[in-house]
């Protein structure tokens, strides 16, 4: 599904190498988790994959279902099936959440040569999916993320994911700023989307989220590389011992 090979990335404006040869393959139907200390390049990886400005790929490749995504515009990557749940969802004053969702859904459908969703059909689907995430009518009406609490913003990200039905979902610290109940709700939303055709890459600092979203594979990232890969037990090891032991192995 998602194949990253020897990815090297530096900041566009300064001579600072952030990713130094990332290799990672996420298969369809699998959940991969990436953990790692602050500054290891986890968020950069998610931004580069989704097409944010400000980064320069100096070497390596990234493809989604065999298609090179690094040359695509962000909207083309989205239409190809890539979705990033933001660590800090952006507030957009003046654009209603519902308008935003419908515009996004239909823009992707159009890009893929599919029929647009009718207003009635869209409304039915969005209400249904919003309900399971405990997103009320008021949150759908309000401007995108404006005045939303941390938990509401993250649930809104998952709602977008549910509406856009991407092939490959990247969750960038979706658990940050969430209380236990909100984390469960978000995890349930993610789990409901798990299926054979969809891959997940969950970036997190804490093992706790992985109690709710059970990963198949866990990677540890440090200094711009994936330094260790294992099963769910690797996350528990980090939770108990921190990164020191793993980093020591590297040195």
């Amino acid at each position, binding site marked *: 599904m998602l194949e990253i090979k020897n990815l090297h990335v530096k900041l566009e404006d300064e001579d600072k190498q952030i990713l130094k040869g990332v290799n990672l393959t996420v298969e369809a139907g699998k959940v991969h988790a990436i953990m790692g200390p602050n500054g290891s390049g986890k968020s950069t990886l998610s931004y580069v994959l989704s*097409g944010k400005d400000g980064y320069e790929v100096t070497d390596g490749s990234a493809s989604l279902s065999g298609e090179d995504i690094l040359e695509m*515009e962000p909207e083309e990557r989205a*239409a190809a099936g890539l979705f990033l749940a933001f660590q800090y*969802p952006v507030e*957009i004053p*003046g654009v209603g959440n519902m308008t935003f969702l419908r515009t996004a859904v239909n823009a992707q459908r159009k890009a893929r040569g599919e029929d647009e969703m009718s207003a009635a059909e869209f409304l039915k689907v969005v209400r249904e999916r919003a309900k399971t995430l405990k997103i009320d009518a008021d949150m759908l009406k309000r401007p995108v993320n404006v005045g939303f609490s941390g938990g509401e913003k993250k649930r809104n990200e998952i709602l977008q994911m549910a509406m856009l039905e991407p092939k490959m979902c990247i969750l960038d610290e979706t658990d940050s700023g969430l209380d236990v109940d909100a984390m469960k709700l978000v995890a349930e939303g993610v789990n409901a989307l798990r299926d054979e055709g969809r891959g997940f890459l969950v970036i997190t600092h804490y093992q706790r989220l992985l109690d709710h979203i059970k990963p198949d594979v866990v990677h540890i990232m440090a200094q711009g590389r994936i330094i260790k890969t294992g099963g769910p037990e690797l996350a528990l090891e980090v939770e108990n011992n921190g990164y020191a032991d793993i980093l020591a192995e590297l040195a």
Partner: protein
Amino acid sequence: MSAVTNPKQTATDARLSTLSLPTSGWSTAARKSADARLRVMGVPGRRDEYWRYTDPASFISATPAKAALFDPKESEMFGSLDRINIVFVDGEFSADLSDPLNGSGLEIVRLADIAALDVHWAKEYYGVLEERGQTPVHRPLAALNTAYANDGVIIHVADTVAKPVNITYLHQSETSDAILHHVIKLDAGADLTLLENGPAAARFNKVMEVFVADGAKFHHIRTQGRDHERRAVTHIFAELGTESVFKSFTLTANGIMTRNECVLWLNGDDGIAHVAGACVGDGDFHHDDTVFITHDAVACESRQVFKKVLRNGATGVFQGKILVKPDAQKTDGYQISQSLLLDDDSQFLAKPELEIYADDVACSHGSTSGAIDEEALYYLRSRGVPAKQATNLLTLAFLGEAVDEVEDRDIADAIMERLEGWLQRHGV
């Protein structure tokens, strides 16, 4: 008022050389007095502080610059509404195109029709607010209007008027020079919605004096057409009584030179005055919103919301002032002026002013100028919205905050549609 300097005298004489005052009728005294005011002040010049950002040259030339006629492809803005329609063609009232001038609770007369009368109630109102508006800042083009207006409507509203009154302006001569003066008097508790739309003339000078008595409500929604070669200077003067409401919104698209002044007095306690505008300009577009709101009573609320989208070297100007008199305690004044610059060539010049003499007031003002929010753009694109569509969405959202000031949702939606169409036509 100080004596004018010679260049100003010359410019004033040149402008007035093609105009003449009527010699009879009820308005003669008011017109003579306005003419005298104008001659003392002189026409505006670039060295006047109030005209620092906007060049008045095209407003004061003896004859107007030629303006190509505009043939709108779209239907008229308020054409689908049930309304009383009044039509002016190149600044002249058209009885053929207008509806019968009557309605329940409403008296409408054409200024030119009553000009010859010796007595008319409008004598007590015509030019009164314009004259008051000359202090503390001179507004010579408004005095010129009072003196030399050749037409207009006098509207007396005694009650709640169910249908809006709509004034449609049509432009059919490339050299027309229209000077219109409207007087609108709302009795206590009366309620009127006034709409204005369409390109008026090659050059347009309009004054509207509005008297809003205690408890009366006046809603005004105006669209300034897409006629690109428009040169227009407009003044709204309004006096608000106790617990009265005045709300005015202007949509402006295109136009080489537009200056809209709005001068309001909150003279009765608990009055509400809102004035808002959304404008979009491309290229040799110059748009100036100049607002002066005086709080002279207790617990009044005033609100100014102006948004401008500028590209390809377009210029936007905002001069907005809130003056709070010593006894105007509990004043709630708010002012925001913002521009979205779609490129580096465009500019926004803003002069927000607060002058407060009361000690128990809440006044705030803000002015910003910026480009499209890159973070929001990336967020939208990451969800699959193409860059151009995302830019459009964000631009409309920006303008929407001004359009939200329009209470009637159908009209607000129609205005948003117009703005969307403009953005698409201009390839934003």
